[in-house]
């Protein structure tokens, strides 16, 4: 499936060439074979994050303080890690863990 991934609040600095927006084609399967956020996070961790993964991931979820939106909706309303993704979804990650 095709997904648009956006990294903000400084998370882009953890990625190659510090690119904010990534157009990707993935099959983010979790253990049960469903395309969920859980599967996407592990894909992002192994395919996009180039440095300091601990700034992004803690355990099998995002680090607390990283906000996630699926199609501009707070992922806490969509099931969090269990939220199922569909083709052409836009997933945004924003870190709040910096000065300001």
């Amino acid at each position: 499936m095709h997904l648009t991934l956006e990294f903000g609040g400084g998370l882009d600095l953890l990625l190659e060439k510090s690119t904010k927006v990534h157009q990707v084609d993935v099959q983010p399967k979790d253990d049960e074979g469903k395309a969920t956020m859980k599967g996407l996070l592990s894909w992002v961790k192994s395919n996009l994050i180039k440095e300091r993964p601990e700034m992004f991931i803690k355990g099998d979820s995002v680090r607390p303080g990283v906000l996630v939106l699926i199609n501009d909706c707070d992922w806490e309303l969509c099931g969090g890690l269990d939220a199922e993704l569909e083709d052409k979804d836009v997933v945004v990650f924003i870190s709040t863990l910096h000065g300001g």
Partner: protein
Amino acid sequence: MQSIAAPARAGSRLCARCGERKAALKRPKTLEQICRECFYVVFEDEIHRTIVDNNLFKAGERVAIGASGGKDSTVLAYVLSELNKRHNYGLDLFLLSIDEGITGYRDDSLETVKRNELQYGLPLKIVSYKDLYDWTMDDIVKAIGLKNNCTFCGVFRRQALDRGAALLKVDKIVTGHNADDIAETVLLNILRGDIARLSRCTFITTGEDGPIPRCKPFKYTYEKEIVMYAYFKKLDYFSTECIYSPNAYRGFAREFIKDLERMRPRAILDIITSGENFRISTTTRMPEQGTCERCGYICSQKLCKACVLLDGLNRGLPKLGIGRSAKGGAGADGNGERQGKRPERNRSSLQGKHGNLDF
């Protein structure tokens, strides 16, 4: 999160407030699921209520917004200028930025503030460490290395804000410290045994006895909501961690707060409530406020912290005034008196100011 039974698909639920539009976020404060438009309304209204209930401003006042270009101060500048118009506060608002002289960090964030000046139509004043102290943070780090540099920066920034505010002839400074920041500072002050700061770090207004009071309109505003607001409104902010700030101790406290928030978001407001309700034992000696003999800035020693630190830098003894004063040269100047007067406190507040957050 596994317990959510409703359809997992994004945006499938209706706003708990208007019942018409799709919910866009879950409020950490109330756990309500609300839509974007209702979120703007409740977010702005709560800040307005905080301002009114705490009498933060009087009509006709000149107010400087401490602006770093980061998320909190950018949202504060935006919301405050909106509320000022909407509710006729009658305030003259200014942006006040500090240029610490950190290449690759502050120079970039100041570009954001310069754009905010145009976007929000607020006059901007920038004061620099170079002009005030004749040292940039780049120079200081060259002289002292990456340890303790946050102490210099925090102490200098606090004074720089006051001096910039005096130049702008403002009546008040507002800062973007949010509920998460304050909860974190309550914890840090407990961890350091810093009773003086513990008792004042939850005050919404501080420095009323000094020349220019400061207040924190975001005292009860969650960081998550500030960032969501900035994201939905597409506000232009700068989000890079300072290149000189490892800030390990504060980092642990921050991470702990965020872990608590994930399990129980109310924890942040509850820590603030706890901080507000501490009663200090009458036998605890508190610092007496005076003024610095050299520069006249308010302080509780003979010389203010900035003058002690600056003295050390200029004399090539940058450790002067840093850290634990039990041995070595750090007990010079103001600290000698401190030890005589209040031996029980001689370790506590010296390293108390870090990074962007000094109370």
